[in-house]
């Protein structure tokens, strides 16, 4: 995992479910096909109601129409981020759009697990509610070692991140397969 993550914030609210992250109608694309996989980037966050997309402004698209990559690389969420279905397409879509991490108050279990196991995005948790403190477009800097996130746009205001805990070795390895290979559970 990179030790410092820098990028623009994209802010969402509470209970962002997997149908908002990647609506069911796009699930016919096969993520194992390199060409089709890119479309998950194009449609990432396509199901978020317009008014709640890119807070506090609203009506900000995560990915511009007909593009594959987002201008935002750090997604900020509230409570229960990624609830709903078990579709791994959700963290995959966020990663495919070019974001490298999500910072939320807490996650729905399967989303968290998929993010870690597939090595898509790093799911950071904060004790603090950030949704009203950070604005979409703010420049952020995450220092993974220190467990801190600095808001460069807002005069360097610092937010604490919770330690990744038990899953850190899997995240460091880049997913459950790499982890299993490193630890000898699976042949290389």
């Amino acid at each position, binding site marked *: 995992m990179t030790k410092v993550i820098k990028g623009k914030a994209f802010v969402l609210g509470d209970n962002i479910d997997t149908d908002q992250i990647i609506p069911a109608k796009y699930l016919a694309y*096969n993520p194992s096909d390199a060409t089709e996989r890119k479309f998950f980037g194009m449609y990432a966050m396509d199901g978020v109601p317009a008014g709640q997309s890119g807070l506090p402004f609203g009506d900000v698209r995560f990915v511009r129409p007909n593009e594959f990559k987002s201008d935002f690389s750090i997604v900020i969420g509230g409570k229960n981020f990624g609830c709903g279905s078990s*579709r791994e397409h959700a963290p995959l879509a966020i990663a495919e759009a070019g974001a490298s991490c999500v910072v939320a108050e807490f996650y729905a279990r*399967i989303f968290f697990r998929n993010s870690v196991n597939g090595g898509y995005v790093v799911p950071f948790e904060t004790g603090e509610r950030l949704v009203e403190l950070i604005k979409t477009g703010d420049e952020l800097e995450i220092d993974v070692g220190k467990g801190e996130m600095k808001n460069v746009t807002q005069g360097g205001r610092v937010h604490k991140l919770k330690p990744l805990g038990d899953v850190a070795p899997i995240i460091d390895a880049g997913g459950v397969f790499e982890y299993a290979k490193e630890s000898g559970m699976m042949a290389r």
Partner: protein
Amino acid sequence: MPGMTITEKILAKHAKRDSVVPGENIWVDVDVLMTHDVCGPGTIGIFHKEFGRNAKVWDRNKVVIIPDHYIFTADEKCHRNIQILRDFVKEQDLPFYYDPEFVSMNPGKPNPYLDPTKTKYKGVCHKALPEEGHIRPGEIMLGTDSHTCTAGAFGMFATGVGNSDAAFTLGTGKTWLKVPPTMKFTFHGQIPPYLTAKDLILAVIGDISVSGATYKSMYFAGEGIGSLTLEDRMTLTNMAIEAGGKNGVCDVDEKTLNYVRARSRIKTWEVYTDDKNAAYDYEGDYDLSIMEPMVAKPHSPDNKDTAHNVRDVKLDQAYIGSCTGGKITDMIMAANILKGQQVKIPTYVVPGSTEVHADMKRFNLRGVLKGPNEKSVEDILSDAGCSMGASGCSACLGGPADTFGRLNRSEVCISTTNRNFPGRMGSMSAAVFLASPLTVAASALTGHITDPREFITSPIETGMAGVK
């Protein structure tokens, strides 16, 4: 040391340990791995990439593949995805695959099966799994679908996972799990005729919120659960995920054992119970005699209210289907309300499985085999003006634009399904109320949300339906 819960005992056994405590990370052996047409292709892709193009699954008798999500659509990618499943089944020589043989790579919408007893296709995986004998008490099942937790109604540990997890298990037979703490929900009294398990679970989710059980096990206990049909218990455990639960579980009783004895492909299993001194993270008590028919208002399953309080809400559509509310007992409950009357709004009926569909044709209103001059459950529903669809997930998750029953405009719908997040059943501007099959049927008759107590005069018998 505190005692253990059912979930803890199952996990300990599969980790080859005497005991486990909540919060521990353990590696367990998996008994059943299920995937479907939406997550199967991705899972298979990862399996091939990580274990090699010629790798074999860890145990071909433990893999179950049930296409159910995007079946009756002209979308070519959906047809292609089913072909990916077929190729994998052939390559791995998998015995448990339920093919929609009427889906081909030809352009256009496939014609559904004509006779539900004459197709290999099953419909919604969570309904098909117990029907086809893949569910047993005391085992561990992973499925690439969040409602895999449904099987907890049979005293099993079952939970939803993503493609990477599933691919890992396909290759190794193992997975890592964090042992969840258990929340206990005790239901006192007997289920009254105007309530179903759907009302119970909507009340619970409304009380603890859509994240109230995150990372936790939900244990449904008490004589009230014993009074539910096995199918209704499946409605409870099915929606554990809507509270964020890792799994949902019920005690095993004679109803469970009758079903499993008749169906299971393997004739041994283990029945676990909570120790008297088991530790719970939360305990909630519910008195069935004072509970009311419930709804979840848009756009969240925890946005609870009583059906009575929202009786002024005008509806454009009603939907009866899915793994939550498309079982044969759900259909019988709806039919008892709709019999001899006409729906006022378009009402879509989608059987959860082809077996449910077949049962709708052979059972009467009381859940027994119909006589030659008697109407079937299906006859009653179509006579009442319902549109009948083929078994599958259908509009429960919106799906491609040509999906049966999909909400394509800013409509208001009442549905027996499990999720009402924005856009879940199709259009982002549609509003969905979740309710029991009784409430949905009563509302279909009036065109506005209706408390089913206005229509129910005596208990509804479901007879032999869904019993064995």
